[in-house]
């Protein structure tokens, strides 16, 4: 996604004839992006700009509407077209807490945070060993992890439901912790492996020659290099766990339900009291929105890396 060079200053686009008369530039690799974006902009600037606006509207409008409506009184939210300038209030959020949204948020936080920590604790050593490859044929182990990504969750749901029921672990938040951990582990191992495979081996060899022990290598050499990868992996796992709906709705009832389940229940019980529903939806999406925007670049890198490699 990212080039190593800083973004060049945008040149004013020149409309009109193609620059065929210009002598071909001896563009260095580092100027590649600028050159291509200039050429593109010269050809169809306004059209692409329009497309960008349409996209912005298409993707942002629903979310903006949700946040804005959540801050309106129910009467203002019901008008059509929506009254954008109606007075703002946080009353809907207060109401949500009166309706007992808190335990759902706590369950979601418990399941997401604990499972993310567990995933990292298990995935980092595994990915490290797989990236260093002291054992032959470990590519197969790696592909085993990857292949489990192809198990449809719905197919695992029925046996898991029966097992959990027999163990008396239904409606227990730790069931979700364990399930989310195993669900995210393959992705995490794969991602971390992609990041760790980029650690230069010379550094590791040098550290060993210097007599650094395993813990010191991990802490002083690997950790600084792997930190962005760990952050990206943690974010992706957190978002997946927070958003998970299918296991949560089928394996929990009252005590261990998570916030997406709360939201869906709230929708069916509240009909279309839009302001209240929007407040609930905003509240439930807030953690992933914060997580996503706090580290968008890492997220993008993690996703591209995980898919391409």
């Amino acid at each position: 996604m990212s080039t190593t060079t800083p973004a060049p200053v945008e040149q004013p686009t020149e409309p009109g004839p193609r620059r065929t008369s210009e002598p071909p530039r001896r563009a260095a690799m580092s100027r590649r992006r600028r050159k291509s974006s200039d050429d593109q902009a010269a050809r169809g600037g306004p059209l692409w700009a329009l497309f960008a606006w349409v996209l912005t509207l298409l993707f942002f409008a629903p979310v903006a509407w949700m946040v804005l409506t959540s801050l309106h009184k129910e009467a203002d939210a019901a008008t059509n077209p929506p009254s954008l300038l109606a007075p703002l209030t946080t009353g809907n959020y207060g109401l949500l807490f009166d309706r007992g949204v808190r335990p759902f948020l706590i369950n979601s936080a418990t399941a997401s945070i604990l499972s993310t920590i567990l995933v990292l604790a298990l995935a980092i050593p595994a990915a490290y060993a797989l990236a260093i490859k002291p054992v032959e044929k470990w590519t197969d182990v790696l592909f085993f992890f990857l292949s489990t990504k192809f198990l449809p969750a719905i197919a695992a749901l029925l046996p898991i439901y029966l097992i959990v029921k027999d163990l008396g672990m239904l409606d227990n938040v730790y069931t979700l912790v364990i399930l989310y951990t195993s669900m995210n582990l393959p992705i995490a191992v794969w991602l971390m492996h992609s990041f760790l495979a980029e650690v230069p081996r010379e550094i590791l060899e040098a550290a060993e020659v210097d007599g650094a022990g395993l813990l010191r290598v991990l802490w002083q050499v690997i950790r600084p290099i792997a930190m962005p990868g760990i952050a990206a992996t943690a974010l992706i796992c957190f978002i997946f766990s927070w958003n998970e709906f299918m296991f949560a709705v089928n394996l929990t009832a009252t005590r261990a339900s998570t916030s997406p389940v709360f939201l869906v229940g709230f929708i069916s019980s509240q009909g279309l009291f839009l302001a209240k529903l929007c407040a609930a939806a905003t509240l439930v999406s807030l953690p992933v929105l914060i997580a996503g925007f706090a580290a968008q670049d890492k997220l993008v890198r993690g996703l591209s890396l995980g898919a391409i490699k």
Partner: protein
Amino acid sequence: MAAQATSAAAPETDAAGLGKARATAFVTPALLLVGAFLVFPALWTLYLGITDYRLTGIAAADPQIVGLQNYTDALTDPQFRNALALTLLFVLGSAIVGQTVLGFSIAWSMRAVPKTVKTVVESLVLLAWILPSSIVAFLWIAYLNRDNGTLNSVLGTSGFDWLLGHPMLSIIVFNTWRGTAFSMLLFSAALNAVPPSQLETARLAGADTFAQFRDVVFPHIRGHVLTNTLLISLWTFNDFSPYLLTAGGPNHASETLPVYIYNSALYSGELGYGSAISLIMLLINLLIAVFYLRLLKDRRS
């Protein structure tokens, strides 16, 4: 990729002095957990699929082996064939056409705009991907609402219920909106790798946009197109979230396979039958996965 190649060439270099024993100890816990909670349930599906297991009643307490009964039932059941056909339509419409085309168009056009615009657009598209599907479903339910939904206001078709009138179209558009970010990011990365000098040459030679795309861009991003298509097809194939919009209705008109499994196994209680269909889904997944992994290995070596 470079590091990959190096380590593949010398598989037994133990650069960090990790040692086999410790390396095995590092990998085993993760393997065990994945085995216990992903692979073992999948294997149990195999067993459940040949029983008449039900959620309640006598067959719940003492399930009998019924052999391939569930499978023959499924294959002759019009409801199952309906679900399979709808799932293929769903994958074709929302993943292969919707997400790929929209994702590529965004990635392609964002090369032409200033970097800030690109960042903003990418973040907003990503926003749709980050949000929980339950919330995206709620936004679409409100947007498509028959009485005061935005779409009906814009089109002047107040009173029309889109989720009842066009359920498949609704879930296809819903899934396209929600999932486009992944294709966009992937193609964005891929297009960065297309040498602009080759595009320039093609343009100087008088190639039109389509010819440039076909002869210059496509050969460079073919691998990415393949990866992307396979991954999003799989995700869409297994996606349960259409349930949140239509619950498979009206009258099974949008009942994709995951929703069908849910409805027959957990709603109607036919666990054995549901498991048999799960296994059929699993096999379809495996076919795609084997195909994908083979391609991936080929590309690496």
